[in-house]
């Protein structure tokens, strides 16, 4: 072989890059597979099904969320009704403790006009929601973001920008909300 040294080095680099995943997976201690993944969801009574069947949600949840965001933010259409008549509040992280709080607070109607009307609207809305809604938000059932969202997203190197704006709820708050 002529110029063997350089060529062999080149070939070793080539073969190394092409087989990099093998070495990398060998070197990383973690169980490389997520094949035993479960969808980490709180078993809440009456809330055993999501808005779509599991397989569809798995494939299209990002589209659902994307559509919902536009419907809520642009058109104010908050309620999603499934074909079997269940109603969902289109929200990623809305927590129903807020509803309770609003309902249980008494407000003086005379104080400040603006604020009052806002509060009244909120109360009406809240009551309406409480009465008819299966779930107020995704995280109400899928309460463990780390297990439910991040595990797959990290596995697939998906970096959704949901949490750029939404606040990740505190676990304690989540507990209260679920009760």
């Amino acid at each position, binding site marked *: *072989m*002529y*110029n*063997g040294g350089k*060529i062999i080095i*080149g*070939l070793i680099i*080539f*073969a190394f890059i*092409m*087989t*990099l*995943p*093998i070495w*990398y*997976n*060998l070197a*990383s201690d*973690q169980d*490389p*597979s*997520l*094949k035993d*993944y479960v969808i980490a969801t709180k078993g809440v009574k009456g809330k055993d099904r999501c808005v779509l069947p599991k*397989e569809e949600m*798995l*494939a*299209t949840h*990002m*589209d659902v969320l*994307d559509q919902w965001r536009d419907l809520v933010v642009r058109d104010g259409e908050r309620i999603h009704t499934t074909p079997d008549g269940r109603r969902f509040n289109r929200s990623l992280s809305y927590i129903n403790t807020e509803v309770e709080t609003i309902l249980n607070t008494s407000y003086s109607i005379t104080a400040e006009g603006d604020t009052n009307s806002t509060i009244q609207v909120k109360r009406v809305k809240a009551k309406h929601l409480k009465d008819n809604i299966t779930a107020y938000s995704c995280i109400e059932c899928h309460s463990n973001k780390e297990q439910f969202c991040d595990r*797959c997203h*990290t*596995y*697939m*190197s*998906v*970096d959704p920008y949901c949490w750029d704006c939404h606040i990740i709820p505190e676990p304690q708050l989540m507990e209260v909300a679920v009760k």
Partner: protein
Amino acid sequence: MNALISFVAVIVLIIISFVGAQTLGLSYLFAVIIPYLAISIFIFGFVYRVIKWARAPVPFRIPTTCGQQKSLSWIKNNPIENPHNWLGAFIRMALEVLLFRSLFKNTKTTLKDGPRLVYGMNQLLWLGGLLFHWSFLIIFIRHFRFFMEPVPWCIKALENLDGFLQIGLPVVFMTDIFIVAAVTYLVLRRLTDSKLRYISLVADFFPLFLILAIAVTGILMRYFTKVDIIGVKDIAVGIFSFNPVVPDGISSLFFIHLFLVSVLISYFPLSKLMHMGGIFLSPTRNLANNNRVVRHINPWNPKVKMHTYEEYEDEFREVMREAGMPLDKE
């Protein structure tokens, strides 16, 4: 005709993988056995081909010089287009491999009335080629997110860069658009330019159609009909950690994609696609033009019959003497 044959060949490959994985349920074959085979053929075939080249010597140092040589100290030489040492040759090669410098020089010759020959700029092929190759490389590297667990930060960074326009959901990768556009251009130019149509073989269209089909199936999976990418990554990681698995319920689109990729990389070492390795071994580009400074050795420098001065003088001694020319033997 050659284009049609190639096109049909790719369609047949798609049908094979669809029928095989979907109807016959040979998902283990398509998700595990064929990929293993293909990867082996690719790597060993590639290495074999390069070693075969390496076994042939470079008897002469024949760089194509495209600039002023290094000669007198006060004449400005061109150290890259006419390298005089390894560094210049290295930079020249790097520019060639990374930026297709020679192709950038491309011109288009037109014969006008008069006759008048005009040489116009013609960088379209350069642009198309560069977009295609770079997109292909970036897409290839991006796919490492399926092969590696945990996904390294650099792969993520590359993805963010590729999708930095943040259009759509999932975010559109620019390279996805570029590669389809570039391959389409490369096919169309072969079909529309009569000279290129004339020189194009089946082997020229086939990889283009194959890559186009791979890109389209990939794009379909990402943006349109979704697949269970967790399952897909399980397969990929399984392969690369020698622990193959085939989860249920993976769309046949994925099997088509994977099969076409397997065909592409198995075909690679058998075909002109080896230009990927060959460009590094091209003696007109990878050598410095320093022949007059450093003697280049030809390992098989042949013994040839020479005509010595003695033989010459023996033949012409008389006439040389008459002409008063000096002689070695009187």
